[in-house]
């Protein structure tokens, strides 16, 4: 079944004429994603990778009937692109952009939720349901369809984990990068609940990192509401407090948000936590055979 995106997902690329937008439009098309067009204000009428470019998202939706958009727009203008997508009543919006002010995202994510649009990101690699649809910048070749749901705050670490899973014969139902910012439109808990309800997903791999309390809340949800096994990995045990480790959301404030605290919360919810990414497939196998 997969979650959020599948064969019925049709995609518009916001920022399609830019360097990243055009490159990833091609990559998505090559994967088999139904990309129907794109938007760059002022460039309506042009073509990118054989796709029509529109001046506004509303026009693009009216003409193509697309139900999803992906945003490759610079940080200063990205949140406006999010609003444009929500106003167009899109089902799913994936915001790749890094560097969006937190306050902007606080308001936009609350608004999207109130309007019923699923916002993924920002500062994320996107979402892939293997064999069906890829929205974002994840490299297609690492995926294989299967029963493992993957949810992560990271980019390349996710690829590493997915690659290991695929090589171990553990294909994926859907893989979602929720992003590395402090505010994520869709958080770990939101995704776990969707995986729990998805018939194709038999087990979940959760990849967390320092900062915030998303993993702790996810652990509570798993303990109380989830029947499917979850295996986790948390990056940043070596991170010193107070230092931003790349991602805007990866920072230990005082004593809050340490990897140790997250690992403890996950273990208390009976979620095995891998000591290295390579250990994950073995833990998933054990969890699947035990369930």
């Amino acid at each position, binding site marked *: 079944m997969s979650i959020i995106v599948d064969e019925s997902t049709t995609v518009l690329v916001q920022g399609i004429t830019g360097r990243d937008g055009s*490159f*990833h439009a091609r990559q998505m098309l090559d994967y088999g994603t139904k990309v129907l067009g794109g938007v760059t204000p002022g460039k309506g009428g042009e073509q990118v990778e054989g796709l029509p470019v529109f001046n506004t998202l509303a026009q693009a939706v009216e003409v193509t009937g697309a139900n999803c958009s992906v945003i490759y727009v610079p*940080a*200063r203008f990205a949140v406006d692109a999010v609003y444009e997508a929500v106003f167009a009543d899109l089902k799913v919006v994936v915001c790749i952009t890094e*560097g*969006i*002010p*937190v*306050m*902007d995202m*606080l*308001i936009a*994510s*609350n*608004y999207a939720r*109130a309007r019923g649009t699923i916002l993924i990101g920002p500062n994320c*690699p996107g979402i892939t349901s293997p064999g069906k649809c890829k929205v974002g*910048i*994840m*490299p297609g070749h*690492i995926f294989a369809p299967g029963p493992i749901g993957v949810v*992560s*705050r*990271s*980019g*390349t*670490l*996710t*690829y*590493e984990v997915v*690659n290991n899973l695929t090589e171990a014969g553990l294909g994926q139902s859907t893989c979602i990068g929720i992003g*590395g910012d*402090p*505010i994520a439109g869709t958080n770990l808990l939101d995704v776990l609940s969707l995986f729990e309800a998805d018939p194709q997903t038999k087990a979940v791999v959760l*990849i967390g*990192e*320092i*900062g*915030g*309390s*998303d993993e702790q*809340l996810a652990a509570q949800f798993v303990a109380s509401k989830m029947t499917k096994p979850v295996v986790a990995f948390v*990056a*940043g*045990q*070596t*991170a*010193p407090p107070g*230092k*931003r*480790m*790349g*991602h805007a959301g*990866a920072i230990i404030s*005082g*004593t*809050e948000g340490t990897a140790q605290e997250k690992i403890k919360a996950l273990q208390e919810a009976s979620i095995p936590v891998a000591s*290295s*990414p*390579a250990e994950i497939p073995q833990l998933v196998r054990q969890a699947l055979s035990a369930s």
Partner: protein
Amino acid sequence: MNIHEYQAKSLFKAAGILIPEGEATSSAKHARGIAERIGPPVAIKAQVQVAGRGKAGGIKIAKTAEEAESHAAAILGMTIKGLPVRKVLVEAALPSSAEAYLAVAIDRAQRKPVVISSPAGGVDIEEVARKSPEKIVRTLVDPLVGLKDFQARAAASPLFQDPSLVKQAEVTLKNLYALFVEKDLSLAEINPLVGTEQGIVVALDAKVITDDNALFRHRDLAQMRDLEAEGPGEAEARNNDLSYVKLDGALGCIVNGAGLSMATLDLIKHYGGEPANFLDVGGSSSPEKVLVAMKILLADKNVKAILVNIFGGITRCDDIAVGLVSALEQLDVRLPVVARFNGTNQEEGNRILQQANIHTAETMDDAVQEAVELAQGQSAP
């Protein structure tokens, strides 16, 4: 980004939040002049971005202008938790009758700004949260509608016993929230917020953290950056679109992606090594970036070996390989290097490295184990 207390107080003042009369200075003599102007007693406070200034002797009360000068001279020479004290804040020492805690922060899980208020001021708020959490009131603000008056009233009421202080605190709270939103802050904290013996509510301390992502639209805040408060290499990395944090070990790392980078450091420790740094070279494959990354990494003289861990999605492994080979040549690097490439064009990337006699490993675990041994075995040249 962190800013100093005196800078945070200037923001508070402009936002209509009362602060003690004062001025920051880097001269002990000037400190005396400020003390004379304000009138003793004055507090002399080290301006360093660390907790525990008081315990380290960085906060002193001066009863005369002469004392102000001598205290300032002593504190200006100090290093507190590794940071040199370049400025002191000289401000009126106001006797207080009550101390509370007030802050505005972001509740990430709820995706809302949160006002945190407590009558337990002047102490470590994390301690209060651990020992007496019932003393802390958290008021979530819906960012779509802002802080409502009824919320401000409810949040202010536990701060003080005296109703006239509560009324003033309500105004302070509203101003603090408005400042938080207007300046794109991540944290605005007043600890303690005091009721003076004259019955006035004043912010005795001020801590502000700004949102790095929003600095582009706040030039005044961006100019407050204290480069000395940053770790070595961080500013240069930032200016080149890299992320770098210096650590204490001998194994230097270059990785693409923050999560993968952190996981690599964790794995190094897992195998008994000590990472020298966190370095996320990011999504682009440009040789220039690899060169800058290598320069920053090598500025750390503790580095005895280098681990390069790349998972190429959009990043092409052959591009990184070219950049790496060129950087090692240009910088005449004699240290052992282990590289692990996976993903896009990995075969080509490995071929380029092998031709340059750079050791490649197949898996992340292999690469880390080999690199750890090299860093430990390598003696100083």
